[in-house]
């Protein structure tokens, strides 16, 4: 059992959990992820390690509610626990001095770039972060990134905060303005990463994307996480999760991510309609959300 020590909402649908997992914390490097199983009978899902504290033996997970399992995770409070947390998994980010490194995070993808920022800074880079969300309340970790970056540019789709527009548009402007961008590291929704690869390709800028395919074991045993990179089959959990964005087959990744859409909808409905546990979780979600948003409707 892995105890949740702190829990708080960052946005109406994004929660930060501080989890006690000393073994994971001690070996964590930027780019690593864990696989968690919330409870007996639960599914195994991959989550980025957003931060770790070796002395305290804790890791930080930042989770967006997108389905039944993430909803159950986000319903956890301090003092409650997660059945299984295994990791750190995957290959760590290859940290180099690129001169000027730009990190681009979309939504909870910002949790992936956050630990990279500090490591890139330490390697001598000038570090810029471009982070996006639908509107102001969906932009996360701005202050935290600020501590490790030379500049942070928040972007919102609706213009309610920061740059009005997509992170990709802001990135393009930045590349053209500065002309010194040595590498771009990105994590976020697949369409965003795909578009971003399109932005950097003409400039020939090295671009690394952190992929998020469906996973089961996370140790290379099942092949469920396979992605096509440069025409070759790769297992994201052991060969990645970071790959050269210019050679990733994003269309295939998008398609494969939809494999269990029907079952996910079923599970979601079940959680919300049919079971007592589901009703309780929903109730609790509402309370927590209200606490986080000060009662504002979502």
């Amino acid at each position, binding site marked *: 059992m892995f105890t949740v020590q702190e829990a708080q909402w960052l946005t109406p649908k994004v929660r930060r959990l501080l989890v006690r997992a000393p073994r994971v914390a001690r070996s964590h490097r930027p780019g690593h992820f864990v696989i968690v199983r919330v409870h007996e009978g639960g599914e195994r899902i991959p989550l980025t390690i957003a931060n770790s504290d070796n002395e305290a033996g804790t890791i930080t997970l930042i989770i967006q509610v997108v389905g039944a399992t993430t909803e159950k995770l986000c319903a956890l409070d301090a003092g409650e626990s997660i059945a*299984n947390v295994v990791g750190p998994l995957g290959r760590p980010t290859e940290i180099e001095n690129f001169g000027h490194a730009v990190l681009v995070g979309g939504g909870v993808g910002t949790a992936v770039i956050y630990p990279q920022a500090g490591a890139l800074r330490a390697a001598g880079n000038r570090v810029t972060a471009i982070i996006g969300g639908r509107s102001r309340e969906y932009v996360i970790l701005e202050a935290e990134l600020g501590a490790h970056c030379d500049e942070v540019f928040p972007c919102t789709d609706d213009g309610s905060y920061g740059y009005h527009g997509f992170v990709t548009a802001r990135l393009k402007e930045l590349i053209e303005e500065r002309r010194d961008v040595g590498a771009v590291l990105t994590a976020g929704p697949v369409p965003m990463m795909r578009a971003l690869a399109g932005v950097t390709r003409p400039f020939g800028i090295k671009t690394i994307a952190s992929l998020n395919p469906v996973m089961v*074991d996370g140790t290379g*045993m099942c092949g469920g996480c396979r992605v096509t990179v440069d025409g070759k089959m790769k297992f994201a959990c052991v060969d990645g999760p970071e790959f050269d964005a210019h050679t990733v087959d994003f269309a295939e990744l998008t398609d494969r991510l939809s494999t269990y859409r029907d079952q996910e909808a079923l599970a979601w409905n079940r959680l919300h309609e049919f079971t007592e546990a589901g009703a309780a979780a929903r109730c609790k979600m509402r309370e927590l959300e209200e606490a986080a948003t000060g009662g504002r409707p979502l």
Partner: protein
Amino acid sequence: MAALKPSERMKIPRQPMPEQEPAQRAANFQEVNCGYSAEAASTEACRCLQCKDAKCVGGCPVNIDIPGFVDALADGDLSRAADILFADNVLPGITGRVCPQETQCEAVCVRAKKGTPVGIGYMERFVADWARQHRKDLFEPPTPTGFRVAVVGSGPGGLTCAGELAKRGHAVTVFEALHIPGGVLVYGIPEFRLPKAIVHAEVETLRRRGVEIVTDVVIGQTYTIHELMKGEGYHAVFVANGAGLPVFQGIPGENLKGVYSANEFLTRVNLMGAYRFGETDTPVIKASQIVVVGGGNTAMDSVRTARRLGASPATLVYRRSREEMPARVEEVKHAEEEGVVFRMLCNPLEVLGDDKGWVSGVRCIRMELGDPDASGRRRPVPIPGSEFEIPCQVFIEAIGTKANPLLTQTTPGLQTNKWGNIVVDDNNMTSIPGVFAGGDIVRGGATVILAMGDGKHAAAAIHQYLTTGCSGNGRAKLNAVP
């Protein structure tokens, strides 16, 4: 029973294994074989001729005293039978169910020459099940030696080694990557062939004997082998992390939705309980028609699992003929009875998909057997122009696995062969002193009993290494003393 003359023993027919009816079992996940009754078991035991030079013992990879336990069973002394059995094999309830007896002990039984061999596997299972229900674990805790050993992987190899080391008084910690111990026994082999309760009971026995099992730890990621031996203070390590990565054929269409490796399909269904989706949260794609490619136990388990999830037809495609299938004979028979369609001598060329990216079928080509290849089996060659299609919504590849590089890559100095399997000496010791290995990571995809044999052999070598400072060949000196 000893009074029976050989001629009388010869007259007794082999006792059949009671089974669930095919039509019934093809729709559930309960065990197919129901196990011998006490009467059937003792009757079967009387068929054994108690050969002086019993060939069956040599046919068993862990050399169980087969005539010994069978004689005790014939005498009705189940307790003695269990003692004899457990002395050589710590997991008989498992091997009695999954060993390929027909190529091992039963293959060399004298009675096989004229008629049917003695049902050694069935009796092994009977005695093990009896012991699990009726016997307390009479375990005398040994004097602790002060040595600590880490075991990587909780499959049959790791569990056996851990049990043997604990018996000798060493403190053992098993590190397992998954959330449940058992390796292939829990994620691969289905419930209907090996009930998980049996594996869990065996694991509990080990725990009671003082073996510490830590799940959710991936060696090579959470700790390296080097860290285990230096920082964490283990005096020796046994690596039994299994075969690992699934092999894909490399044909077009393999990334369509609906293509699974057998490992993924079986893990979803067995380990994650997808066949009870609703009670559990892990989904698996439901299909009315499925095709599995392969001829081993993994292929057979996949196709029979798919059948139980409702596929009709569930088709098995294999590029050689039925005689060459490496699967256990009983599994092939059971699959056929359950209505699995066998398409022998054909090979998939391409997975076909619809416009939404879902599997819609598989295009195959017929094969014929040509000259023998390196393995001595006749090589299948495609017949030009014989292509045909099988419609299906799920396509499962069960054509083998290759060594998982996760651990070996992070262990400098650990010698592997060109396939990535760990190289060991006669004592199962690797190129790193104090680090031993066995099971599928050394042998490539092998069997439960061979992995157990390695675990047992390695435990003896580790014991010697710890207590004398060198392994059997005197190569390595142990520098740490507790």
